């Protein structure tokens, strides 16, 4: 059985994941719409998952993929609760602009 990393190389996957993670960080810092911030967090989680699978193939070990499975479950729970919180915020404030959430700023 041929290892796909022989033709691609682990470093290409590291660079792809780093760039994808930085795009996610940029979305969190740049946008004000809270849903887009959520999408950026999903992009970051996916970058890390991709690297997990790449190193799982590199070590020929299934435990990395099991970890990705758990992180997907946690991401699904996080999105459900987070969107419920966003809906509650939208009911109270009428917008989901993250700049409006500054009651704790003092």
């Amino acid at each position, binding site marked *: 059985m041929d290892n796909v990393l022989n033709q691609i190389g682990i470093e290409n996957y590291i660079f792809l994941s780093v760039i994808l993670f930085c795009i996610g960080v940029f979305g969190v810092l*740049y946008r004000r719409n809270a849903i887009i911030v959520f999408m950026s967090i999903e992009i970051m989680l*996916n970058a890390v998952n991709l690297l997990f699978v790449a190193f799982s193939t590199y070590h020929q070990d299934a435990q990395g993929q099991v970890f990705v499975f758990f992180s997907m479950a946690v991401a699904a*729970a996080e999105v459900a609760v987070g969107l419920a919180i*966003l809906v509650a915020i939208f009911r109270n404030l009428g917008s989901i602009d993250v700049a409006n959430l500054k009651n704790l700023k003092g």
Partner: protein
Amino acid sequence: MSTVLIIFYVLSAVTLSTAFMTIFSRNPIHSAIYLVICFFSIAGHFLLFNAQFLALVHVIVYSGAIMILLLFTLMLMNLNKEDEVHKPRFTRLGAVISVVATCGILLSIFLRSKPIVGDYDTTGEDYQSIKVLGQVLLDQDNGFMVPFEFVSVLLIVAMIGAVLLSKKENSAK
């Protein structure tokens, strides 16, 4: 240049460009559509690794469940108009500078570190088919049975919490 490498480059270009468009499109619905394409291309990366189980679960969970949740929330809030104001210029400049610095530092670390990877050897045994993955996950001795059960507890707690949070309180006052 082998076929696999060409597929990898095409998939990576799709992933990065759609992730970028997710951040930059003004309409949140368009962002969600771009995000679906991004998730599908990441599932393509998983298929390239021959990780069938993760590719399937990724399509079901991300492109299915999470995107439906996001789209329903967007429609519930009626946010498909493009009236978002930008952050102040100072904050945006800070965001750009910090992201460029993070990206540059991480990339230069991995470019300059010259890791000793050697050859990618294959043991030849099957380690990532759905059957083997299930055995690793639910093995009696050193499996992941307890975390697996805790994930189910986490999911049901998240479900109850989401229902409670988004329920309308008509008995207030």
